[in-house]
């Protein structure tokens, strides 16, 4: 099998020395004894790669990268999984999707060139936005999440409104793309490379047309996708990509933003895409430290060791996810913090959902806010 050679080589799977460190840290393995990254690798290396491709365990991995922090051989396990999912897709695998696959359907709908979305109704009156300009803000799927998860009371659009507020305060009039599409993260990680590329092409074209040379995002996944996957699968981008955290750091150092006192004790959830995938550990903490009177306490497991929110790409949401979420929320509560800060709209949704559990929800409750929203709130009126 030529594919096998290629995937195993590219992701350094051949270097695996069967030590099992990956399995010992993997959050999925911890709650589901049947899942073992080591076993997946070893059986793929010893002639059973095709079985791996058909096994539903291929879709259980969160691609959170925690195993990679321990692997002595530097096996790129999440890359191995992603590439294997591309192969799985060719075999016609059915992907186990949460919400009946509704969200993936929405994303595939967005590949249609003739779509004329009405996705900007949320923009607050008085917000300064432009149709063409140097800086664009990529809203991503927030309007869709906001509609889809009304019952969880997540208000995803608050993140977008907060971003506009921050940008305006820093005297930036961002371009909002009327017809942008999902960045494609979830389809990519489900193995649907073809539709990912379609979405990416739409977005790249739309951004080019807007004349923007900087693109700002408030989502950890959009950020990783634009930063790593667009260049990898679509070629170099004609614009710069910034997470709003980076934009905040710049603007603060230029003295453009001032924050008012916020007497709160907070703890921070490192999203896997921002943390382990891109190494942004310091920056979000630095941004938070600019709010006077705000104190940050760390969870027992933070930064490189942080545990993921338990679901990835709307794929593997099950009892194991719930356990990971409840473990994570309990450790957030143990810090004594009164607010949990997330930097990924999906972490936010997943944690909110766990708190709604009729049985254990009460034990998990903690106020939760996105990093972009707390920064915008601290700017005052």
């Amino acid at each position, binding site marked *: 099998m030529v594919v096998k050679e290629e995937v195993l080589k590219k992701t350094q799977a051949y270097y695996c020395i069967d030590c099992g460190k990956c399995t010992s840290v993997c959050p999925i393995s911890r709650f589901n004894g049947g899942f073992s990254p080591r076993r997946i690798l070893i059986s793929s290396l010893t002639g059973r790669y095709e079985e791996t491709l058909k096994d539903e365990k291929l879709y259980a991995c969160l691609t959170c990268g925690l195993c990679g922090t321990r692997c002595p051989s530097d096996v790129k396990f999440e890359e191995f999984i992603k590439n294997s999912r591309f192969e799985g897709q060719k075999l016609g695998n059915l992907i186990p999707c949460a*919400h*009946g*696959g*509704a969200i993936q*359907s*929405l994303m*595939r*709908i*967005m590949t*249609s060139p*003739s*779509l*004329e*979305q*009405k*996705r900007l109704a949320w923009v607050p009156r008085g917000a300064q936005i432009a149709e063409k300009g140097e800086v664009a803000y990529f809203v991503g799927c927030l*309007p*869709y999440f906001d*509609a*889809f998860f*009304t*019952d969880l009371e997540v208000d995803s659009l608050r993140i977008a409104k907060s971003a506009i507020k921050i940008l305006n305060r820093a005297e930036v009039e961002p371009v909002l793309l009327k017809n942008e599409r999902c960045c494609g993260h979830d389809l990519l990680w489900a193995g649907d490379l073809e539709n990912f590329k379609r979405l990416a092409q739409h977005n790249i074209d739309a951004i080019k047309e807007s004349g923007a040379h900087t693109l700002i995002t408030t989502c950890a996944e959009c950020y990783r996708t634009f930063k790593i996957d667009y260049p990898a699968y679509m070629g170099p981008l004609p614009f710069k990509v910034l997470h709003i955290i980076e934009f905040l750091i710049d603007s603060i150092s230029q003295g453009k933003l001032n924050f008012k006192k916020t007497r709160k004790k907070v703890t921070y959830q490192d999203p896997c895409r921002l943390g382990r995938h891109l190494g942004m550990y310091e920056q979000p903490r630095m941004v938070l430290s600019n709010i006077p009177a705000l104190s940050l306490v760390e969870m027992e497991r933070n930064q490189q060791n942080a545990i993921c929110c338990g679901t990835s790409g709307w794929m593997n949401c099950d009892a194991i996810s719930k356990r990971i979420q409840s473990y994570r929320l309990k450790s957030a509560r143990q810090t004594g913090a009164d607010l949990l800060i997330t930097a990924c709209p999906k972490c936010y949704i997943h944690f909110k959902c766990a708190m709604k559990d009729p049985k254990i929800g009460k034990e998990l409750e903690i106020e939760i806010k996105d990093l972009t929203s707390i920064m915008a709130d601290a700017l005052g009126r």
Partner: protein
Amino acid sequence: MAKMKKQEEFEPKIVVFACNWCSYAGADTAGVSKIQYHHNVRLIRVMCSGRVNPAFVIKAFEQGADGVMVSGCHFGDCHYIFGNYQAKERFEMLKRLIHLLGLEKARLRLEWVSAAEGGRFAQVVNEFVEDVKKVGRSPLAPIKT
């Protein structure tokens, strides 16, 4: 010249999810009473309107349906008690999603039809087909070859 036969009239593709106990039986009643209705509908029987996961509706649009209707028992008649209330809630959410996608609201419809209302079933379907004809082909429909 065979191709000249009247500028092809647009025939929408319509998916109707009908609950087993009321609306699907309503369609049967229409059938046995020999009441005609537009043949554009593809009727899918589900056990209850509450069974219609939003994903079903979105997927129907993804695959090129020009309109989707969910039909169940009248309030108070659902055989699983609150299934149709759930359907109503989801419908509200779906309306917002459809709007975001830029699809016309005429493409989505929720109806309550009982087993006895054969005539009403036909009427509701006919209305829906006419409405969808007015808004035309779905932008998501695969290009016709």
